[in-house]
């Protein structure tokens, strides 16, 4: 039988269709459907059995530990590899290897029964399902036969077969030398799926130190393993690997990433605390530190404010109920929150805006912008005024806006500030054209009129007269200016 198989294999190898993957379909044609389904249906029984075998041969670590689960995953994939031996050797192999009886009715009905079972069972149940295992001895035979005859494939052939979606047993590559040749062949083929398959095999069969050492000089394979570990969430193995490679910054980031999977805030905070000491770059270290401090603050603020809100004592919280918890919000959002609910608090309080500003070294610009938005939302125009007023040492006051007064106007307008308030800041916009535009847009008539007067622009001023209300104070004002003989109009 295996001769027939080999001939066929040779035929396909020499065929010009080789460059494509059509050969799979061709194989399929030579297959009895019933037989294939039967074989397929038995696959996971074989798998389960395999798993048991694998576990016995391992070092005996308690099931459920991290390193156990790593092995579990590794073995899972290899056994699914092996599983394919029987299931997916398109026709020629599985059909040839399986006695014809195997494809008979009884086996496929067995599968159906099994299927029903598995739907009610968890995976672990299935693993220990003795009823199923009874059939296993008979089923393992075809696989063993298959292994035998496949054993003379070179690493190159093995990789090539795997590239075409076929499955080969890798178990026969026993020596380190063989395994490395296999890995190098896989890497040379550039097919990530195959490289990953080989890596899973090596990961399972090599000692860690040896695997790490060999991967260090095989960068491509190394990247694939790192990617694989990341995808499957084998954090501990990954960190060990990165540490071995001395890629400390990556270790740090990779560990930090974990915090995203922690839902409980207290635990998350603890975790972030642990991240502070990790070898980040200098710049990143301060960000991580800030991240921790911020969450710490948020937890305190949240506990306090939830209490306040529940008690219903604070008018602010009654009038403006919180839309969401402040936990895990960005810094600027937290600052906004604190400017909204805790604006007047003394600097000593964790929730006071000034405390946040100091702790996180928030730049003036950012602070003013955020505070302005918060106070404007509350229509606390007095606070807005105070925020933009500076006193010099002589006690004179002056209006100053690090963000530019046009931005101040924008923010106030968005919060529906009354014209009287708006106009005060429109007047302070330095650029004349911007000032005129804003004043016209927001109907700050006084500012428009005064600006035209200062520009000595009679034409525009006259034109503007038609835009204000008849008989209003503004109209009178324009009239007065226009009839003022002392102004030297430029037009």
């Amino acid at each position, binding site marked *: 039988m295996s001769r027939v198989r080999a001939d066929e294999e040779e035929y396909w190898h020499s065929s*010009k269709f080789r460059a*494509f993957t059509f050969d*799979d379909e061709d194989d399929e044609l030579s297959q009895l459907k019933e037989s294939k389904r039967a074989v397929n249906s038995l696959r996971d029984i074989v*798998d389960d059995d395999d798993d048991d075998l694998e576990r016995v041969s391992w070092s005996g670590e308690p099931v459920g530990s991290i390193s156990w689960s790593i092995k579990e995953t590794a073995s899972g994939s290899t056994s699914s590899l092996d599983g394919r031996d029987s299931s997916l050797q398109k026709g020629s192999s599985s059909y040839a290897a399986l006695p014809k009886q195997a494809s008979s009715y009884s086996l496929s009905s067995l599968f159906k029964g099994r299927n029903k079972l598995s739907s009610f069972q968890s995976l672990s149940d299935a693993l220990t399902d003795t009823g199923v295992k009874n059939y296993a001895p008979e089923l393992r035979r075809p696989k063993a036969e298959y292994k035998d005859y496949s054993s003379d494939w070179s690493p190159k052939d093995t990789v090539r077969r795997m590239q075409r979606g076929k499955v080969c047993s890798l178990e026969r590559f026993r020596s380190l030398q063989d395994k490395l040749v296999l890995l190098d062949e896989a890497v040379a083929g550039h097919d990530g*799926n195959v490289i990953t398959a080989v890596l899973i095999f090596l990961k399972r069969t090599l000692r860690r130190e040896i695997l790490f050492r060999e991967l260090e000089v095989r960068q491509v394979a190394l990247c694939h393993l790192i990617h694989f570990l990341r995808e499957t969430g084998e954090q501990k193995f990954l960190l060990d690997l990165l540490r071995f490679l001395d890629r400390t910054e990556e270790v740090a980031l990779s560990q930090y990433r974990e915090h995203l999977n922690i839902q409980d805030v207290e635990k998350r905070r603890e975790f972030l605390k642990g991240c502070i000491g990790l070898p980040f770059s200098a710049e990143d270290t301060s*960000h991580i530190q800030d991240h921790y401090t911020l969450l710490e603050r948020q937890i305190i603020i949240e506990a306090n404010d939830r209490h306040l809100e529940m008690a219903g004592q604070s008018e602010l919280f009654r009038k403006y109920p919180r839309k969401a918890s402040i936990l*895990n919000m960005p810094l600027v959002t937290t600052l906004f929150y604190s400017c909204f609910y805790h604006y007047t608090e003394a600097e000593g309080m964790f929730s006071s805006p000034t405390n946040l500003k100091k702790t996180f070294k928030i730049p003036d*610009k950012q602070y003013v912008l955020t505070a302005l938005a918060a106070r404007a939302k509350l229509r606390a125009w007095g606070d807005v005024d105070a925020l933009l007023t500076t006193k010099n040492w002589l006690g004179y006051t002056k209006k100053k806006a690090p963000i530019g007064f046009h931005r101040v106007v924008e923010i106030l307008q968005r919060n529906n500030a009354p014209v009287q308030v708006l106009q005060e800041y429109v007047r302070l916009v330095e650029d004349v054209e911007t000032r005129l535009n804003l004043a016209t847009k927001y109907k700050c008539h006084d500012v428009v009129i005064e600006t035209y007067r200062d520009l000595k622009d009679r034409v525009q001023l006259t034109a503007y007269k038609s835009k204000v209300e008849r008989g209003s104070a503004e109209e009178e004002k324009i009239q007065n200016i226009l009839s003022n003989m002392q102004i030297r109009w430029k037009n």
Partner: protein
Amino acid sequence: MFTLKPGRLPPADVKNIIFFVRPKLELMDIITDNVLREDRGRSPQRDFHILFVPRRSLLCEQWLKEQGVLGSFIHREQYSLDLIPFDGDLLSMESEGAFKECYLESDQTSLYHAAKGLMTLQALYGTIPQIFGKGDCARHVANMMIRMKREFPGSQNSIFPVFDTLLLLDRNVDLLTPLATQLTYEGLIDEIYGIQNTYVKLPPEKFAPKKQGEGGKDLPTEPKKLQLNSAEELYAEIRDKNFNAVGSVLSKKAKIISAAFEERHHAKTVGEIKQFVSQLPHMQAARSSLANHTSIAELIKDITTSEDFFDNLTVEQEFMSGIDTDKVNNYIEDCIAQKHPLIKILRLVCLQSVCNSGLKQKVLDHYKREILQTYGYEHILTLNNLEKAGLLKPQTGGRNNYPTIRKTLRLWMDDVNEQNPNDISYVYSGYAPLSVRLAQLLARPGWRSIEEVLKMLPGPHFEERQQLPTGLQKKRQQGENRVTLVFFLGGVTYAEIAALRFLSQMEDGGTEYIIATTKLINGTTWIKSLMEKLEPAPF
């Protein structure tokens, strides 16, 4: 055929259910859910099969196994679909992870598929005699192609070659182009609404039926879904134009169509009427096509005339023409302060970084701090990814190569003609996409003239030849165009495609271009593919 979604599978009296999926873990979770919710008591029981496109993936099968459902699949196979035709001159692998895998994770699987796709293409359209390439990935793909050819000597075919040249280009040779806002009609549709597999979903308001009989109906609330490709005559004409040139074409078309409908008044004889009637279906199709595109153009115009679009574009153009790339930009700061979408910020900051061969450490640190404080510290992971991909980096050695590259390759053209373009720079209203400039210069006068600049761009540049049997060697007719297949490894934008089509149509161009890519991208989808997947926000 149903779309894959979690929950119960739709009831159907069928025996076999086939899952036809990309090998992605999140899809495996959906499948698991489907399978686990299947009613076991039903009869006849349904059989499950799974078909992976383009490849079976061990990772996915292992995942299914861990969920305990692997055994439910009777067949697990693959459907090797590598390159998918998107238009007469466009092929895509639609592998959105390709860039990230190649440049962040050094996973070259998508390159392997690209090479396989190219082998298939060669089997169908003949061996491509000349291969040019620039970049590490390009080198890999060329190597794999040569290797595959050597390993399967049977693949030597006797088809007369359609393509004269293959040009393989790495996306990281030109990181700049996708970051800029595309200004062609199709490019803008993609930037604003996102074209997915040639379909776009648009807000329905502008597509309300205008016929009087239906006037009473409510406005449609479902997004309007339209297919966009060159089979539509009008779209073929305007898709690659600068958006500013689309309006005049549309109004011209409107006149022609109404004139054509007017013809009916002149039809006197039965013969003339018959002829008119026979043209009606075509005319009506043209009219509805015109109506659709007028609506789309209006939607886009609302956005392109907005102040923010203008400000954003101004900053982009300043960066690309080399103005003020070395200091913190006010507009970017303002956008951060107003919490504009993070991707927009990242696009701009990356653009500035690329146009300055990296940012000064102080500038970079400033941006990073502002972004982290405003959008959350966890984005440190995304910033790190961008740094790894070379999109955002500190300037090393204090040298800025971009001005040299810009001048030598004439990437910035001041006198751009949007209506009747004479240069590819019209697709970005001034900026000529670097990638397409490389293709253009390769055709004429050849890369030898720009050796110096090529050395400044990442990765090797190379040339390979594939021997053809003498019988298949082309004897070129006078005036016959050469055909070049340009393969973008890591993605291509619609604006770049438009630029290549423009070159194909140039009268004295002498080269026609066919485009292939791993994925059709724009700046937003591209940056998104590089962002760290974060847990959904608490609200």
